[in-house]
């Protein structure tokens, strides 16, 4: 399915970054505002799907030489690792910790281990969605 739609290709290149940025914003906003790993991950994969529609699979794979299956594994490790990490401190599985940290540029920021867990979710969602779409696309 070789397409050559110049307008779509040009706009999608720009829009892609906007969507990804928005997705990352959603992901980080998750703890306080609507958003989080699921939406962030889905939105990011939505952006990649847009590229897939504009270009063909080969170009996109060249642009993102990522093995999405491995991404799924990394995501699951993140999630389990965060949950199991609390065992090291002798507190029950899945106990999260949080605290405020003052960073040099950004000022006062609160950090959560929940964020790490959400990162796992984010990666798994991207990994699975892209695995599905890419394998289906490649099988043509």
């Amino acid at each position, binding site marked *: 399915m070789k397409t050559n739609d110049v307008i779509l290709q040009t706009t999608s290149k720009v829009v892609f970054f906007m969507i990804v940025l928005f997705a990352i914003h959603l992901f980080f906003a998750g703890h*306080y*505002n*609507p958003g989080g790993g699921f939406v962030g991950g889905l939105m990011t994969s939505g952006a990649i799907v847009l590229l897939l529609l504009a270009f063909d699979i080969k170009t996109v794979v060249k642009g993102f030489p990522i093995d999405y299956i491995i991404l799924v594994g990394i995501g699951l490790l993140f999630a389990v690792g965060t949950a199991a990490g609390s065992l090291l401190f002798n507190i029950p599985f899945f106990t999260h910790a949080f605290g405020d940290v003052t960073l040099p540029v950004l000022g006062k920021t609160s950090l959560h281990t929940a964020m790490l867990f959400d990162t796992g979710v984010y990666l798994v969602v991207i990994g699975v969605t892209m695995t599905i779409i890419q394998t289906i696309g490649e099988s043509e």
Partner: protein
Amino acid sequence: MEILMSLVIGALLASAVYLMLSKSLLRIIIGTGLLSHGAHLLIITMGGLKRGAAPLLGEEAAAYVDPLPQALILTAIVISFGVTAFFLVLAYRAYQELGTDNMDEMRGNEAND
């Protein structure tokens, strides 16, 4: 509103079941999609509708809607996406291999028992 939603949910589920009982693979998949929509609406309706602000503490409202059903549904949405995708691929692979999308022809036969 809840009564109206109950009726909508009933309609969604009834048509989902009807589609799932038909013989065509694609209709079955669409049926499962409708089924999950119905289930999600059912859960959120059970939690009570419009009883307060969105469940964000930033809203600083006096009352919030029930956050728990929403969390459950969020999980369910993603899972139903995964399952639907799986069904789709299963269906198209089965169609490719067997050359039919008629459930009756896919029946397990005696020899495979």
